């Protein structure tokens, strides 16, 4: 029997709390994770339960947060380091890409780096340009770090648990817009519910077009699919869940059935998730392709403050449905 619905924020909190109870080596560090109880309330109650040793407030020092996690992981701990938002993780890109992702390689397997970087991601709510990014593909560009981006509570729970238990570094992004969204959970007793790294999921079956998405894009794809169904078009929604490694077999098997594809993402369009999936599809599925691959992404512009034009820049379900109608 499935557990009752909980918000994605609570699913993540529960996964992290259970993993800390299970393994003494797991600890959290980041800005405002302890006394503030987490900027997004994911670490609510942690300080009281686990104490300052395992719930470590850091100064506003993203480069150090990124790198301290690498050193602690190499030495045998399992840090879960939080970037308050992914916008601030740009400051730690060297620690993530050049150190977390390469230490194992350039020492030819001498060390493991079992860490998780958590980062709240996404745009909207008039957060303004520098606080409005969904740049998961930038971090997925580099070999050595896995990237997980859940779209709902159950996935977030299972994916975070796997990320913490795996011996590789994982960047785990959490869409701010999805934090309050309720969703079903695994059985209450199943604290070992794990979703393998790189395993995608069909969120809705359909035969006319494949919608490939991750994180918040899955919501827009599912909304568009419901709207399209009323108009007689059955869309299949593939939630890749992980940007690295990519479960392209899942995309290919869906595409062989539908022969059409729209890629949906919250991120910017240039050098993007959509670019990558489209390139792989034309390279490997050319004989199955009945229409151009379409991409729905944010507009190629910094995000403004003012509400109306901010919404213009964002993708939504209508934009997805419109793109589908151009190719079916």
């Amino acid at each position, binding site marked *: 029997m499935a557990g009752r619905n909980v918000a994605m924020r609570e699913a993540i909190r529960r996964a992290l709390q259970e993993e800390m109870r299970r393994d003494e080596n797991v600890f959290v560090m980041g800005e405002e994770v302890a006394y503030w109880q987490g900027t997004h309330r994911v670490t609510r109650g942690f300080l009281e339960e686990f104490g300052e040793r395992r719930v470590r407030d850091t100064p506003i020092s993203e480069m150090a947060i*990124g790198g301290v996690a690498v050193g602690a992981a190499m030495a045998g701990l399992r840090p879960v380091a939080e970037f308050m938002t992914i916008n601030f993780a740009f400051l730690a890109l060297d620690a993530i890409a050049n150190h977390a992702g390469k230490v194992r390689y350039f020492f030819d397997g001498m060390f493991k780096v079992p860490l998780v970087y958590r980062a709240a991601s996404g745009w909207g709510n008039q957060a303004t340009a520098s606080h409005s990014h969904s740049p998961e593909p930038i971090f997925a560009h580099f070999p050595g770090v896995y990237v997980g981006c859940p779209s709902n509570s159950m996935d977030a729970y299972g994916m975070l648990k796997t990320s913490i238990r795996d011996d590789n570094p994982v960047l785990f992004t959490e869409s701010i817009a999805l934090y309050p969204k309720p969703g079903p959970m695994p059985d209450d007793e199943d604290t070992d519910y794990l979703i393998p790294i790189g395993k995608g999921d069909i969120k809705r079956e359909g035969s006319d077009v494949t919608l490939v998405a991750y994180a918040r894009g899955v919501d827009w794809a599912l909304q568009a699919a419901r709207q399209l169904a009323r108009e007689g078009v059955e869309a299949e929604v593939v939630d890749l869940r992980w940007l690295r*490694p990519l479960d392209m077999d899942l995309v290919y098997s869906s595409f062989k059935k539908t022969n059409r594809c729209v890629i949906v993402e919250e991120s910017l369009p240039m050098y993007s998730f959509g670019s990558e999936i489209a390139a*792989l599809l034309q390279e490997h599925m050319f004989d199955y392709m009945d229409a151009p691959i379409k991409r729905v992404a944010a507009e190629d512009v910094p995000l403004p403050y003012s509400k109306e034009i901010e919404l213009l820049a964002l993708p939504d379900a209508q934009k997805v449905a419109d793109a589908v109608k151009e190719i079916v």
Partner: protein
Amino acid sequence: MASPSKDMLLDWYRQMVLIREFEETCHRLYEEKRITGVYMHLYSGHEASGIGSMAALRPSDHVITAYRDHGIALILGMDPGAVMAEMMGKKTGSSGGKGGSMHLASAEHNFWGGYAIVGGHLPLAAGIALEARYRGSDDVTMTYVGDGATNNGYFHESLNMSSIWDLPVVWIIENNGYGMGTEVNRASGQIELHRKAEAYGIKSFGRVNAQDALEVYAVATQAVDYARKHGPAVVEHVTYRYRGHGVSDKQYDSREDMSAELREWMDCREPIKILRDQILKKHTGVKAVLAAHEEDAKRIVKGAVEFAEASELPTTYQELFQNTYVHSKMVHKTDMSVGAGID
């Protein structure tokens, strides 16, 4: 002041002449194109800095450094053959040919490696020290930092974090006068670099003439003891690099002021000569031992070069991809088409 035994001093001499022979051989092999990497930063001139400070450690302590890492590796006891093979990118290299000159490491010696992004290893050092604190161990992490790194964000963030968390780190600033080609006084508003650490509440043991291994050792023992008991310590080692920033540094050929400066350091502050004089002043009947160490250094490095040159290069895709990730049952599949890695 800590007084090292005769055996210790003789062993330092052994290490010092081995490093010098190794580094000068690397330089020659680079000039002869038998070592082909673009980057190679030699420890010639710095020897007393590493030897004197690491002599204050115990085996369970940790060491991490930047890219001028050959000397550190040899002091810790890494096999010169495996290190030389790494210079040549061979399978038998200490990093399997994946890392090269700047990425030597040895888990068995608690040597957490050499790192190539200036300052990039500083938070790693804090993380390694955090693991010790987390477990209640008093092992220290000795961290070598170049003067240039004191100007970037990693330095300030890492030192500050080591201070607020009382991490057992000894920050050794190896001030050799230049960050690549820029003099310290053109790069840093505070030219007494250890004072930057003091700004974060870190205990400073001041500046040390790091051409004198005895002086380095005396201060390092205090700094290590302090870090073990209390928290981070800093020492500034004033030293000089004999082979420039890296092997491609041609400044010393074109700038008379710099070549004069180099000659002055080599003539008046040569660490091998200083140590040799100190040993001979204090101990008799050791000349033969010193000579034997010099001969051994030549023999060992010659053997290392022969071993490295006889070793094979990695050549396959399997070798290219392996160790990108830990092989894990929790990973669903890898996708070769986008190079997601095999293991």
